[in-house]
């Protein structure tokens, strides 16, 4: 790949505009949901008192909004990346965007106006049995998820159509021939890593969206009184197969961005080697089998699925660490890495992906889960690989895209802000881990006095994070207009 800051051509300007829509929409939602997060931590610290009703409504919105925001932004980034080589339909991307945002809007209405506080994980039968909100509010959330799943489905189908057309079918886009005979490395025609990853996540995204859509049918039927109560264990399996995969997808989508952007800052190519093909083709399966680690404490779950959950959770860490993380570090080592906001956010994301992954691996170990499940340890690990993982990669790409298109590189202040983003985020998530190790429950509106200390230490880090984000936001806003206009001009 060329090391020019702006490798985009005028032919994909329409796709780039859609991608900017996804990234900016995701980033703005992330900021708004982050404010809700700050309010909740202030409540935990005993600094601000929020009523339980409002706390859990904000918590529900925060969870759904963040998962939606980060996935949307990461998808936008990946679309922009692959659109350099693959034809994508900008119209399909905008239709998906409208469906996705309609879904998010319904969740906003249901929580803020409809008093829905069933948690973003909508664990059946709580949404129908919440006592403080109506059935209509629950159905609005499910309707919102329906639209969001539809949006995801459209993006994934668009990506899959693009990559399979560019790589000569599904087998070509997954490099299956090379996978089965490693000595047959073709000189040309292998998908680029980002194309391979786009294909992998499109397949799992389609499966997750279908799982979500299928799952909603019996729930709507129950609400309409057509069928009796849906089995709680069945519901839990399906909602986590959908929700866990949705949340997990973000980090893999964002990893696809890293494969494309890190070469720009290291001046080294990230090639489609056999380990890259093997790891990513394997992830198609591994991403779908480890959701059961959320059901360890459901003793009624078949033992085989629990064991699969533990082994699957260990297994999915291997290809990610050994191929993507080690690959990224090898790309950086001795490269003369150019330090800029995107490269700083990417190295922070590499740190957080592994650190959060370590916390997740511990929690995926069944006897440890017995004393950690649904303590603060759980939000600790997924906040780590959101804020210092998927989100960091997505914002790296957003900055990279806007700076490249507008031709205004970031200054020293922005680089400092990027590092402070890391410091703030790390302090914030580490306090979640410490609280979890002290058995502080997650999802409690009221924290006992002896639990408040963890949130009190976390709050200054959150404020630092907010300040860093404010700086980066202003920095990106000034580039947004010129970047947008540039997509309308064919580039040389």
């Amino acid at each position, binding site marked *: 790949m060329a090391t020019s800051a702006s490798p985009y051509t005028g032919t994909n300007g329409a796709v780039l505009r859609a991608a900017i829509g996804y990234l900016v929409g995701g980033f703005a939602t992330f900021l708004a949901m982050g404010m809700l997060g700050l309010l909740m931590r202030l409540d935990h610290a005993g600094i601000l008192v929020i009523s*339980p*009703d409002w706390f*859990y409504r904000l918590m529900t919105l925060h969870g759904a909004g963040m998962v939606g925001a980060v996935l949307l932004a990461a998808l936008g980034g990946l679309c922009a990346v692959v659109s350099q080589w693959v034809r994508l339909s900008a119209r399909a991307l905008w239709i998906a965007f409208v469906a996705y945002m309609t879904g998010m809007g319904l969740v906003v209405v249901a929580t803020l106006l409809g008093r829905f*506080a*069933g948690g973003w*994980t909508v*664990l059946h*039968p*709580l949404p129908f049995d*919440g*006592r*403080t909100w109506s059935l209509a509010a629950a159905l609005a959330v499910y309707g919102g998820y329906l639209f969001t799943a539809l949006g995801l489905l459209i993006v994934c189908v668009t990506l899959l159509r693009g990559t399979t057309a560019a790589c000569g079918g599904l087998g070509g886009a997954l490099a299956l021939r090379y996978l089965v005979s490693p000595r047959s490395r073709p000189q040309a025609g292998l998908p680029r890593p980002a194309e391979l990853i786009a294909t992998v996540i499109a397949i799992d995204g389609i499966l997750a969206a279908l799982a979500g859509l299928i799952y909603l049918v019996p729930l709507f039927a129950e609400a309409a009184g057509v069928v009796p*109560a849906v089995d*709680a*264990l069945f519901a*839990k399996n399906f909602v986590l197969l959908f929700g866990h995969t949705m949340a997990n997808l973000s980090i893999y989508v964002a990893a696809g961005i890293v494969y494309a952007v890190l070469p720009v800052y290291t001046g*080294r190519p990230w090639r489609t080697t056999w380990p890259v093909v093997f790891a990513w083709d394997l992830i198609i399966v591994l991403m779908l089998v480890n959701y059961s680690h959320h059901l*360890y*404490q*459901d*003793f*009624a779950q078949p033992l085989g699925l629990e064991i699969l959950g*533990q*082994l699957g959770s*260990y297994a999915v860490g*291997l290809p990610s660490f*050994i191929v993507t993380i*080690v690959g990224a*570090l*090898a*790309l*950086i*080592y*001795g*490269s*003369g*890495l150019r330090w800029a906001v995107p490269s700083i956010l990417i190295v922070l994301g*590499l*740190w957080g992906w*592994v*650190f959060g992954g*370590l916390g997740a691996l*511990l929690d995926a170990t*069944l*006897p*440890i889960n*017995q*004393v*950690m*499940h*649904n*303590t603060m340890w759980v939000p600790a690990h997924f906040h780590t690989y959101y804020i210092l993982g998927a989100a960091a990669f997505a914002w790296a790409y957003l900055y990279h895209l806007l700076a490249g298109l507008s031709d205004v590189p970031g200054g020293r202040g922005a680089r400092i802000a990027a590092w402070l983003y890391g410091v703030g985020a790390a302090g914030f998530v580490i306090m979640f*881990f410490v609280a979890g*190790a*002290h*058995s502080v*429950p997650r*999802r409690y*509106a009221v924290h006992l006095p*002896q639990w408040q200390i963890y949130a009190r230490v976390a709050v200054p880090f959150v404020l630092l994070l907010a300040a860093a984000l404010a700086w980066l936001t202003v920095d990106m806003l000034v580039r947004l207009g010129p970047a947008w206009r540039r997509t309308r001009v064919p580039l040389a």
Partner: protein
Amino acid sequence: MTPGLVLWVLVALGVLWTAAWAFVLVRSRPGPGFDVIEPVENRLRLRLLVIFGGIGLLVFALSLHAYPYPRFRARALGAPTETISVLGAQWGWSLSRNTVPARVPVEFVVRSKDVNHDFAIYDSSGVLLVQVQAMPGYANRLIYRFERPGTYTVRCLEYCGIFHHIMRTTFVVH
């Protein structure tokens, strides 16, 4: 494993990882070409695969003995001599008895009247000891042996509506 110990394991692993990460960043200055690094990377990859794969399998095998499910606990602690039925409902717990004998295996049969809850037992110093989900339509059996007499607190650890955090009770082990 106690929660405190788990934190120290994370700290140890986190320090190792952070050191490796920082080492690479320090060495990101122009150095050997990628043609030199790539073969080193491939050897390292293979080694890490063997090491981590081995550790993963070993940890899995060791963890099997400490699984919280009834058949594993009954084998480790002995067959339960006392049974306590537990019913979770929005937003409180009812236990069939409030005193539990110490140093014998006891069994909690945990059910839910409405939505999902999670029956979690905290010791008197606030440490989470064991937990099991309370699910509508299912009876989950949790076997445990209390070593120390004292007052234990039950908290709900599955979000169950806006008074989830007040869903607690206590019982005495003697």
